[in-house]
């Protein structure tokens, strides 16, 4: 029983972490329609930049984290401005865009080990405080993950539903042609989507660095989880992306109750397969539209 409680607590933590990843990729995918796999590299840029500011330049943790997030936002926006936008202009096929994104991911993911080494890099001055929740243990950093995930989710939703730029984002996602007709600068709106998504990914990256350190493979793992969460949550729903991520994380954690912990990811993926087979549109997805004939 105590084990189950700990697993539930862990599940909330892991689920929240994945929910944040889902929302970070989802906002970009839902508004621009791009399979932005290089998002994994943006995650790593956030983590490693923060390490750079903290370990190399000696900044305190918070400013280093903010700086890292800023760098990630710039990189994410640069990818849209200098890679994706030009490709859209020349009418590149979706597969071309996807492969280019993959190329960017691979390049950056292999630059980091050269610059920072393959071993996990951590912040020098993270103060880890254990917390007890009944019989379960967690730490302050893990709690930050939960708070950050849902706090940022709430902030993004409030932004999208209660502010004009947010509504503009949703408008462009729902009817791109009408957005043109009304005179929106679509390029700038896309940049905003990438800025928000990249910031969220970077926050996730920094938090993970605080928890287990920054490793080269983390970014790729992050974008895989993020895209799986969005798929599970359903196309067209950001809340779905959060729920999808939460579900995967919770399922992975609870699976430890009966299975050895190495099997977490396999369980998570297996559940995804079963759910997608049973309900292809995902948790909150709209009807799967057939291409117009």
């Amino acid at each position, binding site marked *: 029983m105590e084990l189950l409680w700990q697993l539930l607590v862990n599940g909330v933590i892991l689920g929240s972490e994945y929910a944040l990843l889902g929302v970070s990729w989802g906002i970009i995918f839902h508004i621009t329609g791009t399979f932005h796999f290089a998002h994994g590299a943006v995650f790593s840029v956030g983590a490693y930049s923060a390490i750079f500011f903290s370990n190399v330049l000696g900044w305190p943790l918070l400013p280093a984290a903010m700086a890292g997030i800023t760098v990630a936002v710039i990189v994410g926006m640069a990818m849209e401005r200098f890679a994706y936008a030009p490709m859209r202009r020349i009418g590149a096929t979706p597969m071309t865009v996807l492969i280019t994104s993959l190329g960017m991911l691979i390049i950056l993911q292999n630059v980091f080990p050269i610059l920072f080494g393959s071993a996990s890099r951590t912040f020098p001055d993270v103060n880890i405080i254990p917390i007890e929740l009944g019989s379960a243990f967690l730490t302050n950093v893990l709690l930050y993950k939960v708070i950050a995930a849902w706090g940022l989710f709430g902030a993004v939703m409030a932004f999208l539903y209660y502010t004009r730029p947010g509504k503009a984002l949703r408008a462009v996602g729902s*009817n791109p042609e009408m957005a*043109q007709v009304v*005179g929106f600068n679509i390029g700038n709106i896309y940049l905003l989507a990438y800025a928000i998504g990249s910031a969220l990914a970077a926050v996730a990256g920094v938090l993970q660095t605080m928890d287990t350190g920054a490793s080269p493979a983390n970014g790729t793992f992050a974008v895989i989880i993020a895209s799986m969460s969005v798929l599970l949550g359903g196309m067209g729903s950001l809340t779905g992306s959060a729920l999808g991520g939460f579900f995967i994380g919770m399922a992975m954690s609870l699976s430890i109750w009966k299975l050895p912990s190495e099997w977490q990811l396999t369980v998570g993926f297996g559940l995804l397969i079963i759910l997608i087979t049973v309900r292809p549109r995902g948790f909150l997805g709209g009807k799967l539209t057939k291409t117009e004939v």
Partner: protein
Amino acid sequence: MALLEVKDLQAGYHKKSVLQNVSLRVEPGEFVGVIGHNGAGKTTMVRSIFGLIQPTGGSIHFGDQSIVGNQPAENVQEGMAMVPQDRAVFPNLSVRDNLELAAFYVRDKAHVAHRIGEIEHLFPILKERQKQLAGTMSGGQQRMLSIGIALMQNPRLLMLDEPSLGLAPLLVQNMMEQVRNINQMGTAVLLIEQNVASALAAASRMYVMKLGQMVYDGPPEKLQDRGFLMELF
């Protein structure tokens, strides 16, 4: 000087050449109608003027500016607005949000609110349903919202692509009345229609398009003759 001057416009999709040297003119404050059979190229023409399609030849002048090659956003800045044929609203946003977003780049919030008030005066249903999600409204209501959206930035030229499509006759009548009011207040109107009668009743000058070319440019009265009209179609 004409408000809109299109000369020898050529445009198409893929390889299909739809417009063959189309010329058209709209004077400031005028109400011009364009009719013709399906596939004649009416929608292609409007979309080319607005910048959603890039023409392959010819010239387009708005005021004294050449606007060939412009993106729609630039044309909106210049004072052009368009109501497309279908799906012309943001379905998952409220009516009010739809109108506000149409004036996204306008800084003066009071001015925007005032303008919304004016448009709600024209189409009271939009005030009644201001919180409703646009996608849940009926076709006719959505059409009025689309016109309202187009009017938000006080355009000099309002282009409507088959606004009567899918609407019941009474609704079409109401809507056309409002469009006439808008025109009387000074906005030039370029009306593309399949519904000949409603165009003839409102426009002061008519064009007829057939197979990508203009085959008539003149007063609406002549087109009341059904035989003459059929020849043009």
